[in-house]
């Protein structure tokens, strides 16, 4: 399925870190831990629907194991991703090559890894910051207009504006950095790399 495209098209080239000024100042503010977990609230606004699609759930990030994205309402579903695999309820999906890296960059607080694929502008205040990412790639521009990120010591908000004026907004809350994964989290990562 092509379901994966957009967030995943962000994948383009995240290799060389040309440390932007803004990024250089923001990055130290962000906590970079091996494990990050928290809750999310997602809101998708599609221009042909007269109300937003709202969902909420939890996420867990482990630097070496990948990401668990667990939607709880309105329909429970699970998405598991690491460098090699992408699993959803509908089975194994093709993994766009840099998808895992984007997730890592966002959830693991390594924002400077995004500078290759995007023009980045931003503001920073004492404790908070805002970044605006615009795709460099012509192909990607046709799908994504901008990505807005904001946060403090953590990433708090992600807003994806599509070229067709659809919008996806994800709020992160109750972010914590435990020392080890819970048994449940362990088991879910097991499924990803048996």
């Amino acid at each position, binding site marked *: 399925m092509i379901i994966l495209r957009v967030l995943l098209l962000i994948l*383009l*080239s995240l290799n060389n870190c040309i440390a932007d000024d803004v990024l250089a100042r923001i990055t130290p503010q962000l906590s970079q831990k091996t494990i990050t977990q928290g809750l999310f609230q997602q809101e*998708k606004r599609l221009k042909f629907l007269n109300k*937003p699609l709202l969902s909420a759930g939890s996420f867990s990030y482990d630097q070496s194991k990948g990401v668990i994205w667990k939607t709880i309402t309105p329909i429970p579903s699970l*998405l598991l991703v690491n460098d090699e695999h992408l699993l959803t309820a*509908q089975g194994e999906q093709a993994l766009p090559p840099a998808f895992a890296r984007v997730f890592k960059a966002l959830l693991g607080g390594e924002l400077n890894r995004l500078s290759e694929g995007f023009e980045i502008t931003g503001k920073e205040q004492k404790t908070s910051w805002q970044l605006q990412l615009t795709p460099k790639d012509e192909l990607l521009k046709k799908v994504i207009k901008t990505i807005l990120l904001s946060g403090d010591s953590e990433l708090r908000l992600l807003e994806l504006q599509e070229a067709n004026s659809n919008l996806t907004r994800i709020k992160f809350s109750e972010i914590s950095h435990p020392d080890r994964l819970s048994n449940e989290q362990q088991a879910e990562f097991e499924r990803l790399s048996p």
Partner: protein
Amino acid sequence: MMLVIGTLSSQTLTKDWLETGFLALLPATEQQPEIAKAIQKHNEQRDRKVIWLSGAATSEAAISHAQKLKQQLQQSRLFKTILLELPQQQVLQRYQQLFPYRYQLLDAQTQATLQNNPKDLLSRNLETLYSPMGQMTAADLEHDPLLIFSRYFHAQNPIKLAVEDGIVILKDTNRVWALLMADLEDSNLQLDKLESLLALVNNAKAIMQETGGDLIATGMPLFTAYGSESAKHEISTVGVGSSVGIVILMLLTFRTLRPLLLSFLAISCGLFAALVVSVMVFGKIHIITLVFGASLIGVADDYALHFMCDSFGAKNWQPRLGLRYIFPGLLIGLLTNLLSYSGLVLSPFPGLQQVALFSAVGLLVAWLTVVLLFPLLLTRFTPEHQPVILKLANNWQQHWPVWLLKNRRWLVILLAIFIAGGLWHLTPRDDVRLLQSAPAELIKMADKIKQLLPVSPENQFFMVSGNNLDDWHRNEQQLLKALNPLTAQNKLSSYQGLSDYWPDENTQKLNYHLLDGSLYQSGLIKHYMSDLGFSDKAIKNELNQFTTAKNRTISLPDWLSTADENKQNLWLGCDSSQCRSIVSLIGITDLSALSLLQNLPGVAWVDQVEQLSSMFARYRVRVSLLLTAAYFLVFIGLGFKFGWKNALKITSIPVVSALVSLAMMGWFNQLFSLFNLFALLLVLGIGVDDAIFFFMADASREKQTSPDSDNEDKRASTSLAVTLSALTTLLAFGLLAISSTEIVHAFGFTVATGIFTALLLSPLVGFRKV
């Protein structure tokens, strides 16, 4: 005569006469023409395709390598199409063409969901929509609220590949690869183009490796190219090797250039005529024919040698007198050789027919050159010296049989044990794949690509037929349903069948009714859409579109016109009585489980490898009989000419030689197949030659009333000729044994051991104790 051949050559050899494709060697399948047609269609695309993967540490680098490679390929002008970026325009067009039929075209999974629990479809949609991904699908939702067409469309490409910048990206543990596919202009490339293809691969690889990347490539054309290159290399090795050997032998023996030049004349007349006639008859000759043909030098030289060696057998030797003595032997020699080659003509393999004709013409012309021209050209050829090799050969023919006869008791027992043991170990191997040997590196690349990109269809496939379109569709669906459990058990990784993508018109109507009954009439779609937040107008519009589409169906030809080349090639068409298609298979791990499915109605299992291998096995048995018959025929012929007892003596030489040769194959675990039997036909020809000349030498002694020294000299000169000819033949065929093509190697080994045995045994014929 040479004038005629020369004139013919100017007409034939100016065309493209050399064939290199591996399949040209094989007989057209013995199966029905439909299957032959299916095989051709199945292989058509594969035989032209070269798959390239450019690798690097990152996808950006891999893509940039691939883009440079694409330019290189374009400049080479070898390819008809070069595909790097996926044809997005084409995909979009296909989407738009099929979209009006979305209520009729359901994929199998959606069909099953709708039948069992239509609400599942809706909740899966919601899952996707509420996930952090799925923006693209969300955009589809506007015109395809149930996402049924999106499902159908994506089910058409069951293998999910990652795409970056429109380019397919594959990943393994330490490298990222970008995919490029190229189709050659023609599946039957000419030799020079094959060479440039190989050069292109090596060159591109070198360039990429210089810049830290890597390149792997695979495809039928590469295998063909490597095959031709090694064959070409072998021709020159065998040709040069045997020529050098012959030059040295001749100079040592005759100490003058004339015999050498004359041999060269005989051989080149023979080879040239053989080439011209073969091309005339077959249109094109295969490069393998030339490999075997190169070894003809050794046999063609026999005639010249026997003639010239005779000059050592008489004082005041006169070519005409010499010819008179030697002619019966030469004639019988020629006839037995032609007889043994005629056996090859009977084989169904175009390759061997070519070898047979090539050799027969070559020998005949070389023989004629010797018989007609040599008497003139050898005028006043009276060597005064006694060459060392003559003394050696003469000593050997005098003493060797004595030793053999003295020890015959235990020698015979030893020989019997050796032969019996060897034959015991002899196991036939008829696998057609042995015909084609490829360098390990090429096989490694092919395996690697197969593992990264499991999309190339296997050699085996199903052909499905039915009395009409409906019947065909039903049969194919039945087969595909039976294949599903096999893919679940990993006996097969995937398959492609048209009926999965194109429901027949009846099923299309059923699909519409299924949707109607499960989601539309029940009002489920209305709820679903309004829950999601679609406007009333949008809901009404969707319901309207559904009603309007009620009687729509898409015919197979219309559907095929939107399909890609891969799918189009699956359709074989309908004739007055049957409709047929191919179901292609990818990643087979259990052949026997698949072949069992041929019991289904209208299903035929086509295994080209197995078919050819079993044909090899059948013909091996058939040719064994042919071989026995040939030996028997020679025996009968000799019996009428020389009497039964003598015929038995003469024939026993090639018979024992052939047995020893077979036993050697057994002991050394050599490849034993159809092709070795043809080699034994050569052993027959040459072994009989040797025996006959020894016999004639003895017979001439009996004819002469006054026993002077000449008598022993005939035997001496014969032994020289036999030794020289055996040595030259050994050089020629022995060199085939170094071939990297296993089948050519086996041929060389068989002939070499056979000839060597014949050389050891033939002095026994007509031997008398002095």
